[in-house]
């Protein structure tokens, strides 16, 4: 039991982070508003989880201007994709045990 749990990635422990990573896994880019609407969380909450994931180099941030408005979009890094896949595999193993 212990060894399986140690394979779970601490960085993905919160619901919001799991949600952010899930969306990035299946979309090339996702913007802030879409994340917020899908995950039903506050701006601050999402922003803090995003910066944690960015620090871990699991995602990259791209800021652009659409007209005068800023549009921030996120995409997953190859490293983040691998980490999330490993996390998913660990979760599945835990359940199959």
């Amino acid at each position, binding site marked *: 039991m212990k060894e399986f749990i140690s394979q779970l990635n601490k960085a993905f422990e919160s619901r919001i982070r*799991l*949600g952010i990573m899930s969306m990035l896994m*299946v979309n090339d880019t*996702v913007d802030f508003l*879409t994340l917020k*609407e*899908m995950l039903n969380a506050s701006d601050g909450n999402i922003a803090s989880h995003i910066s944690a994931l960015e620090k871990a180099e699991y995602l990259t941030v791209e800021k652009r201007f659409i007209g005068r408005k800023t549009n921030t979009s996120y995409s997953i890094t190859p490293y983040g994709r691998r980490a999330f896949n490993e996390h998913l595999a660990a*979760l599945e193993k835990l*359940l199959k045990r």
Partner: protein
Amino acid sequence: MSQEKDYLQDLTEIRSIMEKSTRFISLSGLSGVFAGIVALAGAGMAHLSIRDFKSLLTPDLADEVWNSMIVRLEVRLLLIAVSVLLLALFGGYYFTARKAKRLEQHVWTKSTRHLLINLSIPLISGGLFCFSMYYHGLIGMIAPAMLIFYGLALINGSKYTLNDTRYLGVLEIALGLTATFFVGYGLWFWAFGFGILHIVYGISMYYKYERNK
């Protein structure tokens, strides 16, 4: 034990988020049923118009009379077709928006855009192709071509919505190809493909995804 439940819940949620963020799942079965009923009504009206037209034919018809009759018939059929299309689109939007509201989803998302673009490419090509066949007088091939292109559009769009639309697409293509060998019965095939198949598909989707959910 409770921890195990948490992991399971995590996995379920991950899967649902992946699904929701790439596919337009608010498409309602009732839209299909409604579109099917409208199509059947339209086909019925077209059938009656054609029957009236035939009953007025006499062997000694003057050319001018014949010409004005055929133009009148064509305008009538075109009006029926446009009304069927508009009504079906309106109903489709209404039932889908209603389902989206219940699922607390937005109707206009990236996946909706993907779905519409991927549906439109074969649909618009098909529409123009049918127009060209009409132009060349190949009236008998229009109904089969509509079915085939519609089926291709469904298969193309199925990546961005409920996967079941793929099977409906395959059926429409098969029906369209069969219809190419039964020129003259186009309206019947059309009514079956756009009417009956839509109704059957819509009812089964409604029971599969919407009832009690």
